[in-house]
């Protein structure tokens, strides 16, 4: 009887150790399987027509707003973040909703023309463009697909002056200026056929439509001035993006 109890005790300990190892192994194996399933899922999802896929992009935007091109080192420090929501019609054609956001912490000597008046100084610059694009595969190689896209875009850029050098407007450092634009976005991307990661060059051209001066002294973000049908002024930019699919 004692021998049996001892056997139970020893075996229980060794079995527990084996189980612990097995459990770790099983978890790792299950995680590995899950990863493989997810990778297969990405391929499947991109190929599916009905379900949208989502990719994120990071990159550099070169923007010229109201003839204010980057001149100084600080002006070139910009980050672009975006996303593409893609509905595939078939293997060649797709519809995409594209978001292109960018942030430039400091743009020096930025002259903003507010109708016949102007404000100049150092400002941060935030842009957000929303485009509705038709995407079409225009070429294919062994490793890459070349995909062209074009479509209308609406967007805003926001100026928040941190230093004002000249000013004959009512814009101050506690105001934000938000300008609505409409235009067009066109791009071409090289997409890896295995990983689906891609590199994209896109161009945006837009004209200003209306703008608001927003009071930031309170949390209400009240517009203290709205100008509709503003004098059309141009915004154009080149976006250099690297993108990858989440699913």
């Amino acid at each position, binding site marked *: 009887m004692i021998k049996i109890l001892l056997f139970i005790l020893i075996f229980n300990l060794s079995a527990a150790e084996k189980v612990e190892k097995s459990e770790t192994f099983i978890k790792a194996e299950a995680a590995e399987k899950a990863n493989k399933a997810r990778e297969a899922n990405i391929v499947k999802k991109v190929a599916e027509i009905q379900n949208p896929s989502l990719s994120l992009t990071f990159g550099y935007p070169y923007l010229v707003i109201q003839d204010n091109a980057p001149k100084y080192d600080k002006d070139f420090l910009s980050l672009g973040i975006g996303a593409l929501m893609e509905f595939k019609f078939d293997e060649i054609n797709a519809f995409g909703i594209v*978001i292109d956001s960018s942030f430039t912490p400091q743009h020096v000597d930025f002259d903003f023309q507010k109708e016949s008046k102007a404000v100049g100084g150092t400002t941060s610059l935030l842009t957000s463009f929303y485009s509705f694009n038709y995407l079409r595969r225009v070429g294919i190689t062994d490793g890459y697909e070349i995909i062209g896209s074009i479509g209308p875009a609406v967007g805003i850029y926001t100026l928040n002056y941190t230093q004002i050098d000249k000013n004959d407007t009512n814009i101050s450092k506690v105001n934000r200026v938000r300008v609505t634009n409409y235009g067009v976005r066109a791009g071409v991307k090289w997409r890896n056929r295995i990983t689906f990661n891609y590199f994209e060059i896109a161009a945006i051209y837009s004209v200003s439509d209306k703008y608001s001066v927003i009071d930031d002294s309170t949390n209400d973000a009240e517009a203290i001035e709205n100008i509709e049908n503003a004098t059309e002024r141009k915004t154009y930019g080149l976006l250099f993006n690297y993108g990858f699919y989440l699913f």
Partner: protein
Amino acid sequence: MRLLLITFLLLSSNSYSSYFDYTDRDHTKGEVVLDQSIVFAGHLSGYLLTQGDTIDKNGSWKKYNEHFLDFKFDNDNTNWNYFGHTYTGSQVYLFYRARGYTRSKSFALSFLSSLWFEAFIENYTEQPSIQDTFNTPVYGTALGFISEKVSVYLLNSDSVYVRALGRIINPFSFMVEQKNVAFVPVYRDPTNYSFMVSFNYD
């Protein structure tokens, strides 16, 4: 007899465990409508609870009709538009994921939920916002995707504190049923036995 003994010993030595991960499944149209309704009710409740002053100050049915589907860019600041909405969007996405929708469908449903909120709820006090309609589901899904991955990793930890962190990051993980993993011994001969692993998905 020996097999039974081994089985008993293994069962008594914590041979059962659980593994946390998402399982996609198909849904009926009724389920989709129900889940959209749940999110709509959640949005409405959150709006009533957090925007009481704005509703009193700016809300009216006249404005509701005037604003209906009249989308424009809002004046909200960057923190709210990019971070606040991204977070709420991620939770909506995680809700749909917890209900068993695929990532793609969760994204599409999040997009619709965002649209319903802007078009049918928020326009009681202000015009529906273009930024919110797109930023909330798109960037929200991206954050939700990352939150899901991180929480799955954390929730499979042996540490209760790490698992608690996983629950905080992804509260809707409570709606995901855990998969039980059983280690069942397979007896071959007196010197050789192995384990069969059984996953329970119910």
